[in-house]
């Protein structure tokens, strides 16, 4: 139907949105099929704004958004048939039961999969006939996820699906996402400020800070190119001068610095030094901790 690259589920180009006290600046991301993209950012960094702009729940100022090659919002009906969205607060009607919600929503989707819905309801023990307002927070999130997946979407957009949930429910949600991408034509974009969730299941990591994308990269190569470099003793003086190291600090035993081009550093560096891998959490704090404070 469209002459776009079938491997790209979501393309965001030059997305801009200005508020009085906040600005989303020139956001570019791509979600390839078969991947889970973790969208990391501190609270208020612009994660929700971007997700809402993709769903056209808020009007963007500029930019081009394409889902499966179809542009938003021009082809919003066709796009929304292929997208499942879970907002930062559940959009379920509190006065309705899950049963009512599902039987309402199913009329809008041609590819609704009732079997999968029943399976997930049972797997997650989501009560069918209780009012949404009587469900716990974790249940509401699970119910929203089931609803978002019921029409077999190609792309899932999840805004902080795991925040505020207990570890058991969080694990269940992550499992559900891994289950979802077993079909390689699908993809997930989920925002979070919980780095360990992203580190666990995401293939791609996108970090946003203060309305700007810092990087969007596959997780393995990202963690590969960053290292903490420890230079013992006083001999580190010269190495610290190199532009390959940043955030250098002298500590009791020598110097500690960080590099984002470890392969290059390995070739250039001489003398005594050792390197340590960073966890995604350490990396996230390193890159976003200073700014905006």
């Amino acid at each position: 139907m469209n002459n776009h690259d079938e491997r790209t589920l979501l393309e965001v180009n030059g997305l801009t949105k200005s508020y009085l006290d906040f600005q989303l600046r020139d956001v570019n991301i791509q979600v390839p099929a078969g991947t889970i993209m973790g969208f990391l950012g501190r609270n208020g960094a612009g994660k929700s704004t971007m997700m809402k702009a993709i769903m056209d729940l808020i009007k963007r100022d500029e930019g081009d958004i394409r889902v499966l090659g179809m542009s938003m919002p021009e082809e919003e009906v066709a796009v929304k048939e292929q997208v499942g969205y879970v907002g930062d607060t559940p959009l379920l009607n509190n006065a309705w039961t899950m049963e009512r919600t599902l039987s309402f929503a199913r009329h809008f989707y041609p590819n609704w999969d009732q079997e999968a819905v029943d399976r997930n309801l049972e797997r997650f023990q989501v009560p069918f006939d209780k009012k949404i307002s009587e469900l716990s927070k974790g249940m509401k999130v699970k119910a929203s996820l089931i609803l978002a997946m019921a029409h077999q979407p190609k792309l899932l957009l999840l805004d902080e699906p795991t925040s505020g949930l207990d570890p058991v429910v969080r694990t269940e949600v992550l499992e559900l996402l891994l289950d979802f991408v077993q079909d390689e034509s699908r993809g997930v974009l989920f925002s979070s400020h919980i780095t360990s969730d992203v580190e666990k299941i995401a293939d791609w990591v996108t970090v946003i800070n203060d309305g700007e994308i810092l990087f969007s990269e596959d997780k393995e190569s990202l963690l590969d190119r960053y290292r903490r470099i420890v230079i013992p003793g006083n001999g580190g003086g010269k190495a610290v001068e190199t532009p390959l190291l940043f955030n250098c600090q002298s500590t009791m035993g020598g110097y500690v610095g960080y590099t984002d081009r470890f392969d290059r550093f390995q070739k250039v560096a001489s003398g005594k030094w050792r390197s340590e891998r960073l966890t995604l959490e350490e990396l996230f704090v390193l890159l976003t901790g200073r700014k905006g404070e």
Partner: protein
Amino acid sequence: MNMLMQREMEGDVASGFGDKAVSYMLFGIISILLTWVLGPKVTGVFDINSMNQLVSIMCLLITVSSMSSKLEEDHANRQLSFLQTLPVSKRQIVHVKFQHLLLNGCLMFVWLSVVTSVNLFISKSWTLESWIQVWGFTVYRNNGPASLFLERLSGP
């Protein structure tokens, strides 16, 4: 589209019946109090036309309040956002809202017509003119174009 309309209509009859009953009761009590305070002479409620006008105003207010409460409920549950995540265009959502409004208006018109007609019939003074007068007052107030039109119509 059908489902969207059903959803809009749902609030009118089924859900929140208790809430609605309370608001109707309150409304009734307030209007009775009002007539009591103002006294029958001032408002002239025993006059057939005034009675009709009172009924009309009440009916209008009830309709407006029920529609706005539906909007408030949707807002509280973020249902408009939810509807926007469904594969329907925004234009459709607005359309349905508007149609529902129109439908409510029509229903109100029919109901009012029946009540005022009955009222006029009972007092055996039903004429087209007095029937239109109720509407002229309710919808356009005294200086609206309709009342001008009515003045011309009733003429010297």
